[in-house]
């Protein structure tokens, strides 16, 4: 039980970091991405701060045999650079650059009740769900998705 509930603290801290760095402001994102028109490099410093900390802490943490609340670490192990990775990242980037929202800031700012935020989060949920449904359907075909989809996802519901 505790193993599950402690993630609340991580989510809370995450949202505070997003707010303090103003990454909850879509304008800060688009002013970074649209670098030819009054570039705002703030996002770069957010990434540097976060990655700098995690670069050190993850190495120290992974010296432990297991996390504090769980039986083992569960980290991604795949290494192949495949089509879904590239295409997915490209599509995500387009949506991100269009309005300046990615999943973390969008979820944290639901509480503002802002209409655009609610539309974005709803559409994001629909997109995620739709992909999972189609992903399973294509993966079940013998040559499902023409090699577009990773095999380990076959049969996932």
């Amino acid at each position, binding site marked *: 039980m505790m193993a599950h509930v402690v993630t609340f603290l991580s989510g809370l801290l995450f949202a505070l970091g997003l707010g303090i760095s103003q990454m909850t402001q879509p304008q800060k994102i688009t002013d970074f991405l649209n670098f030819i028109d009054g570039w705002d490099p703030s996002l770069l410093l957010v990434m540097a701060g976060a990655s700098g900390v995690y670069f050190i802490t993850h190495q120290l943490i992974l010296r432990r045999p297991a996390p504090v609340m769980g039986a083992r670490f569960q980290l991604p192990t795949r290494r192949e650079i495949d089509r*879904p990775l590239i295409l997915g*990242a490209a599509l995500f980037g387009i949506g991100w650059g269009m309005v300046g929202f990615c999943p973390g800031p969008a979820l944290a700012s639901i509480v503002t009740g802002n209409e655009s935020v609610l539309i974005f989060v709803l559409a994001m949920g629909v997109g*995620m769900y739709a992909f999972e449904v189609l992903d399973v359907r294509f993966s079940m075909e013998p040559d499902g998705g023409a090699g577009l989809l990773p095999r380990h996802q076959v049969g996932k519901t």
Partner: protein
Amino acid sequence: MEHFTPVSSLIGGIIIGLAASLMLFLNGRICGVSGIFGGLLHFKKGETLWRSSFVAGLLCGGVLLLLYHPQSMAINIPYSGPTVMLAGLLVGIGTRMGSGCTSGHGICGVSRLAPRSLIATGVFLASGSIAAIAVNQFMGGQA
């Protein structure tokens, strides 16, 4: 360089890094928001509680910001409903297909020097820039 906020960005970034570290330290997982949220959309035993707790934490963090740092939550999106909806759909599909977003790939993956995350981060920064520039140039930022 308009509205550059180096100090608050760096401090906020460090806090985000600590939040991701806390997830790894306590729960042993990567702190990827799209993966954590996406995993909530279909029920799987033992996978729902820790994910909902994280999202609840994000929302409570949002409430604290609203109360004590309201300027960070004064969100102004000058785009039409259909544009926002299309962007949301693309973010939803793209993050699941590409197995991550700015947090999982951009922060955790890049710091772990994971090849998939380094590539994904390069790709979404590039396509994101193209999209942001296109919206600004061709639609005057009012799409």
